């Protein structure tokens, strides 16, 4: 796949493999149960949304650690249909090396080469094929200690804006991707699904590469969301982080409840355990941020969602990750720069399911 001229920004390619690499491998001798790492890619196309998550989770008890590589793939169209699956792989079918950015899980891979991410996915259980090149528009940024609770934290590497080129095929329907906004991050740390935390996260991307701004929103609260541990809105301008609003800089409002006639849950069998279509997904999240003369207003309007169901580390119970797509309006000013665009949003709400 050849990138068009408009997809190029002069970013030092060596930044990526030195910032974005696996911290755990399937046969790491020092891995403890509870360690988790994933490499996540989102594409916010004009007529579809795609999420691909390559993960490695260390389960088990005591000194006996069991590593599970997984690919979670979710594909949602503008008309409200979703497809995808969660697929686990044997260690024999997995190639991940500590210190390297690449991952191969069966027929699926995410590699970094020639200053772009090359992602291929073909879940064995679904008629889906993905072959995309993702060209970074921003430099990678690392947050080394994102607190989830008093005892748990996660590390975060983010490349918030890439442009996707390639092809997605689903059930015989082909989507040519010429220049779609995309997002990539990596998370790793020792924490438990079903731990004492909940999170909201969203990537807000412009439709075209000529728009210099992109944003990431996050809020971490306690498990019951009665208290907020941290909240932030980070703005990037072209390659660099430009402004971070944090804590009391932000005012956040949830409006309405998003209801769907049918909710896709992955793995599908989880629908038997979490029946019904209720989910505490708001119709909108409105964020206003002020500080030192800067101000930004962000309205995220959600259209649709699917859920990924993850067993809690401790028996019994589940965590649901609501993967939400929608539209975003951004308006404001940072320094002398005006911020204004209408774009796309993908959000994730991590809430305990039981």
């Amino acid at each position: 796949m050849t990138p068009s001229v408009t997809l190029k920004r002069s970013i030092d390619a060596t930044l990526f493999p030195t910032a974005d690499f696996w911290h755990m491998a399937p046969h790491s001798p020092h891995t403890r149960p509870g360690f988790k790492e994933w490499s996540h890619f989102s594409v916010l196309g004009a007529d579809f949304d795609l999420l691909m998550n390559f993960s490695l989770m260390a389960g088990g008890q005591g000194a006996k650690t069991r590593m599970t590589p997984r690919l979670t793939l979710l594909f949602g169209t503008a008309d409200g249909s979703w497809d995808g699956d969660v697929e686990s792989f044997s260690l024999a079918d997995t190639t991940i090396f500590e210190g390297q950015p690449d991952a191969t899980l069966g027929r699926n891979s995410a590699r970094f080469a020639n200053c772009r991410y090359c992602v291929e996915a073909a879940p064995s259980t679904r008629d889906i094929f993905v072959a995309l090149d993702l060209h970074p528009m921003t430099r990678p940024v690392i947050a080394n200690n994102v607190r989830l609770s008093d005892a748990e934290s996660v590390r975060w590497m983010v490349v918030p804006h890439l442009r996707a080129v390639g092809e997605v095929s689903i059930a015989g329907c082909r989507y040519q991707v010429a220049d779609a906004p995309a997002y990539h991050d990596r998370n790793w740390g020792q924490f438990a699904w079903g731990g004492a935390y909940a999170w909201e996260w969203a990537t807000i991307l412009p439709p075209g590469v000529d728009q210099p701004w992109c944003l990431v929103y996050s809020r971490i609260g306690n498990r019951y969301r009665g208290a907020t541990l941290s909240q932030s809105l980070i703005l990037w301008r072209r390659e660099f982080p430009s402004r971070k609003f944090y804590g009391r800089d932000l005012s956040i409002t949830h409006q309405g409840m998003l209801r769907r006639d049918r909710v896709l849950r992955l793995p599908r069998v989880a629908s038997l355990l979490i029946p019904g279509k209720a989910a505490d997904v708001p119709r909108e999240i409105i964020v206003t941020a002020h500080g030192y003369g800067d101000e930004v207003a962000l309205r995220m309007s959600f259209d649709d969602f699917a859920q990924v169901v993850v067993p809690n580390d401790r028996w019994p119970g589940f965590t649901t990750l609501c993967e939400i797509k929608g539209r975003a309006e951004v308006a404001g000013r940072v320094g002398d720069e005006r911020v204004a665009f209408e774009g796309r949003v993908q959000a994730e709400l991590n809430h305990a399911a039981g």
Partner: protein
Amino acid sequence: MPPADFFVFLRNSLSRIAHEVPDAHRALVDAMGNLRARLVADGAARTIRFDFPDWTIYAGAGDADLEVAFDRAIIVDLIDGRLTMEDAIYQERLRMRGSVETIERFHGALLIYLEGLIRTPGAPVMLESYRKA
């Protein structure tokens, strides 16, 4: 394929849960207690009960506490999320016969079994094999 495939899947999945998710297996054994459930899959009937330290699946049916009848299409629709348990029962695609107490107990055990199955790393492969068989 012979309908007994379901019982092969059931036996294998219980064995994997016992081995890989012992917390789930303990909870399942507690929930089942001495319940004997007659399962009729595609017309083939077996009774399942827990005899320490393992599950026994046998052809006799006279001592069963309840009966649950279904076919492969229902199981595939359930595991693919196309059919809810509630709809399967209300539409009588999945038929349960027994006292309210035993049905309630079996339903509780079934939910624990399903949660154990989701937590079992090899479950997707087993489900896929059953779906394709």
